[in-house]
């Protein structure tokens, strides 16, 4: 448990001045641009977006002192003792909301959550990631992330999802409502300082993918939160529904969030080694080995819904087996071959994540698992050369390839036994998460499903 860090850690002589200047920047911008409302953003343990709006008149005090609120109102924030906490805005994240009414501009700002005495609050996922990023920095590494976020557009949020179109991969038609939605979303994301690398139509009906340009892990987790909000908001304005549910349709591939990871040391890509025959450094190999060793333990965090496992079990682009490969899309960790002369883009792609995860916690456990691999100098097992989807159970056993957990319950068992995940998340979130997710599983176990009714009712 961290007690000293208040999110205002002194990073050198310029720091005091810098934070005052950032605060002034926010206050002056609010004044100059006539901002009417400032939204304080933060995230609960499950990764759901929380927002509190304040007026510009309150902003100065809130920037200096934080906004006090009852933490027990937020999932995962409640504690036995006193429940009041402070939302402390991080002024470096201040943005004007591009979709606000131009006549009434709104600003947004991400917050760190602290206790009333200023110590960091252990239930705040953003602080969990900060702590893990700081641990990496202590051993000289900065982690960069670039997720590929998939989602579906449906006609509404009702229980019978209706795709908007049946266009296939790279298919573009002028009447495609979804492509128009996507264009507008990209425009909004760029305005929110979230650069997009590619955006194209995915395989599934009405399924889309947005690939974000790499940035540091904390900024990226903020960006994923903003992206989910922006995609949903823009869809809603057009009368359709966007969902990041991992597997909304039977027989159609689910939505993943394949995430590219790289470590930099002193501004250089630490995954690249010009002397290695395959260009991959020992650091990279141990990092991957760490991801593989702890893959089963971290899956409850990277894939936190009952529904997440429907995506993993079905295959398609989702990995089922704990393995790595260079150009084998059935592997859990893929190492894309960097383009010629682009050694700085050497990276590994972790393919289990889905877009319903809490990005702060998911990036935290990925970083922790990889770092542990480096720390213990783990040796990378052999690459999976075959298409793992074609393996029989016997072949799989012979190759020594483990499965990812088959369901949330199995994933929670693995997590509960994991010292690594407990250390990465901190006791508070670790225990709350397990309790909450066990309850979700038990609730699910009691449900009579459509499958059962359709299969059993006519026959028994």
């Amino acid at each position, binding site marked *: 448990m961290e007690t000293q860090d208040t999110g205002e850690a002194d990073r*050198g002589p310029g*720091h005091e*001045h810098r934070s005052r200047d950032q605060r002034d920047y926010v206050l002056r911008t609010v004044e100059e641009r006539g901002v009417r409302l400032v939204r304080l953003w933060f995230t609960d343990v499950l990764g759901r977006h929380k927002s509190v709006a304040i007026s510009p008149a309150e902003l100065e005090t809130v920037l200096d002192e934080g906004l006090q609120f009852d933490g027990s109102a937020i999932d995962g924030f409640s504690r036995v003792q006193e429940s009041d906490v402070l939302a402390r805005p991080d002024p*470096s994240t201040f943005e*004007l909301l591009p979709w606000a009414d131009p006549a009434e501009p709104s600003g947004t700002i991400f917050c760190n959550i602290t206790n009333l005495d200023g110590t960091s609050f252990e239930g705040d996922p953003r602080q969990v990631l900060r702590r893990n990023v700081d641990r990496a920095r202590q051993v000289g590494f*900065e982690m960069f992330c670039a997720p590929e976020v998939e989602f579906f557009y449906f006609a509404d949020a009702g229980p019978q999802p209706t795709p908007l179109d049946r266009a296939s991969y790279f298919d573009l038609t002028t009447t495609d409502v979804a492509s128009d939605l996507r264009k507008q979303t990209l425009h909004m994301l760029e305005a929110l300082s979230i650069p997009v690398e590619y955006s194209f139509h995915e395989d599934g009906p009405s399924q889309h993918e947005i690939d974000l*340009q*790499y940035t*540091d892990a904390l900024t990226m987790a903020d960006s994923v939160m903003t992206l989910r909000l922006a995609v949903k908001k823009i869809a809603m304005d057009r009368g359709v529904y966007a969902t990041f549910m991992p597997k909304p349709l039977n027989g159609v591939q689910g939505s993943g969030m394949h995430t590219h990871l790289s470590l*930099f040391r002193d501004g250089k890509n630490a995954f690249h080694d010009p002397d290695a025959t395959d260009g991959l450094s020992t650091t990279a190999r141990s990092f991957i080995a760490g991801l593989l060793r702890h893959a089963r333990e971290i899956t409850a965090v990277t894939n936190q819904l009952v529904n997440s496992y429907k995506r993993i079990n079905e295959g398609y682009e989702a990995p089922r087996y704990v393995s790595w490969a260079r150009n084998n899309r059935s592997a859990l960790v893929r190492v894309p071959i960097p383009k010629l002369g682009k050694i700085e883009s050497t990276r590994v792609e972790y393919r289990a994540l889905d877009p319903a995860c809490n990005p702060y916690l998911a990036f935290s456990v990925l970083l922790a698992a990889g770092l542990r691999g480096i720390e213990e100098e783990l040796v990378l097992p052999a690459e999976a050369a075959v298409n793992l989807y074609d393996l029989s159970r016997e072949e799989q056993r012979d190759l020594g390839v483990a499965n990812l957990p088959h369901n949330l319950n199995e994933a929670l068992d693995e997590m509960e036994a994991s010292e690594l995940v407990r250390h990465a998340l901190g006791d508070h979130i670790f225990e709350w998460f397990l309790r909450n997710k066990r309850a979700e599983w038990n609730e699910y176990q009691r449900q009579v499903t459509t499958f059962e009714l359709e299969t059993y009712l006519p026959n028994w």
Partner: protein
Amino acid sequence: MEPLLVFPNPPPPELAQCLDLDGWSWKAVSDAEAAMAEEPDGGWAGAVVVADTDTEGAFALCRRLRKVEVPLQPLLLLVGGSQLDSLDLRDDLFDDFCLSPLRPTELQARIKHLFSRSGREVRPELVGYGPLALNLETYQAVIDGEPLDLTYMEYELLKFLAAHPGKVFTRETLLSRVWGYDYYGGARTVDVHIRRLRAKLGEEHASLIHTVRSVGYRFGQSRWGG
């Protein structure tokens, strides 16, 4: 406004960052000869002389700047706490002093005060280049008259680049001059922010920021017209 003279060359990074953050243009010199040779047409706006490492060199420079017909002022001296006795009998060589290690807020307050006493303009208000204008007082940037919605670091980076048009900066330089100590992500962070800035400048103006291959970035036209 003409630049401030700063000694030594290079100055301590925290001083450079502090002056940059406050929007001062400045130029470092290594001795009195360089101070004469590089004096801008309108004369130096003032001087900040760091005396805690090369004390003799610092006072030699002060003497040359002050023992002339038109003494340079204001002149702010930075000294270490244990060196205060070196100020004895040298009161005419400086207008005020500040203890090092410096506290940025104190340094800025002192510079501001010195300039207000000497009746000179306190700090530059506007940075402009072509269609771009930044108002340093209100922290607002406009392009073609349209406001740009920037985060704080995007604004700081754009301000720094626009204040030094035509000059090529490495990622490391930008990191130390614009970010200082307070950032996540290392030198790659610079690329990320450049990419974000270009997107916000819009297609038409994205090329204001040039990538100089295997070196870094340049804002606006090169000094050689390239």
